[in-house]
């Protein structure tokens, strides 16, 4: 309080009224010597109290208008649902067992599977370098007809090249003349007449 207020020579200020009102909340009644003695200030104080009460009422009414019975009922139902959900925790569906067994990483199985896969990969790569698998496959494809011929004439030492099949008689004979003989059959060969001799004799006779 100011000195003037204390001496009672002036009216109460706005701040003083506010302070009196604030203090009055605790005590239930605003008391001040000047307020009791001065009807004007008492009137101002009453007006101040009415104004501040009006502000409170306005704020309360505004909020109460927002809180309609429907809104409160819906809110209450929502709270009940949420509390029920709190009491019943959400169920978590498990993954299928097989998938979980492979995925779960806390056992030694997974480690062993990883190691085996890596070992297979390294071994495969190494073998691939040692054996030229691709070349073998390509060669086999190219030699397939010759292999069949060779299978049919297993006893022959010298295999016929693939182009033999397309020769005419002359070429076949000349080839036969130049072909090397099998040593073990040379005795039989000597005893039997040769086709080439017959052909040569026939030719000589014609030219004569």
């Amino acid at each position, binding site marked *: 309080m100011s000195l003037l207020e204390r001496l009672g020579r002036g009216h109460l200020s706005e701040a003083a009224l506010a*302070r009196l009102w604030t203090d009055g909340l605790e005590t239930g009644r605003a008391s001040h010597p000047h307020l009791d003695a001065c009807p004007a200030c008492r009137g101002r104080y009453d007006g101040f109290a009415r104004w501040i009460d009006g502000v409170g009422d306005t704020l309360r009414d505004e909020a109460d208008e927002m809180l309609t019975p429907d809104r409160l009922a819906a809110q209450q139902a929502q709270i009940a649902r949420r*509390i029920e959900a709190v009491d019943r925790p959400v169920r978590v569906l498990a993954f299928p067992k097989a998938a979980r067994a492979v995925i779960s990483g806390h056992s030694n199985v997974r480690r062993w599977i990883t190691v085996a896969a890596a070992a297979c990969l390294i071994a495969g790569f190494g073998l691939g370098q040692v054996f030229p698998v691709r070349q073998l496959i390509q060669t086999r494809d190219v030699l397939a007809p010759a292999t069949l011929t060779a299978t049919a004439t297993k006893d022959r030492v010298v295999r016929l090249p693939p182009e033999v099949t397309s020769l005419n008689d002359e070429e076949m004979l000349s080839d036969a003349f130049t072909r090397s003989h099998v040593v073990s059959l040379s005795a039989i060969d000597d005893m039997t007449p040769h086709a080439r001799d017959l052909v040569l004799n026939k030719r000589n006779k014609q030219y004569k």
Partner: protein
Amino acid sequence: MAGPSPSLVAAREADALAASAVKALQAGGAQADARERYAELVARHQRRAGRIAYHYLRDAAEADEAVQDAFVKAYQHLGSFREELPFDVWFTRILINGCLDRIKARTRRERWIVPIAARTAAPGGEGGTIERDVTERVAAPGLSPEETLLGRERRREIAAALSRLPERQRSVFVLSHVEGRTSKEVSALTGLNESTVRVHLFRAIRKLRALLAHDVAGAPEELKGKRRVTS
């Protein structure tokens, strides 16, 4: 507001009984019964909680959510509730903390987003106001259109003035004046000591008075001309 009224004391006793019963039922595993009993507490405090949340957040939908969150949280942590404190004080503290968290989150959001009202407001200031709530369109029963309009305008001004108060002053004003709490209870709710509560309340009233100066000017005729006599 010298102290709690007999009806308030009786209500608090009933709250304490209900809260203890819910705690015991929760501990005993009777969840359905605990929920049923807790519904009584919800029904008793729902309206008041809605009012407080609305005064803090100024948005009906967000206030709804804040109230729901507070009730669910209170139910979950009812085990930590001490009977020496009234249930409504304990619960209101949970609610206010939730509201303050929401205000902080909103402030962070609005830092990056331009509000629609700000975008639509022309530099001249016309046509930029957007109604925040459906209740503003609802006419009060039994009032003339002019009275309704004036009443709506006054509410808007008071709400705007309240929102301009610093956070602590607003909290103290709403709790002590609008909700009718004693300084001791406001102290328990806000964590401020009682004398600080009174100082905040005094400052809040002074500031509101200044912000709503024309509202004060509309006061009875005998008050005019005597506003500032002593310093």
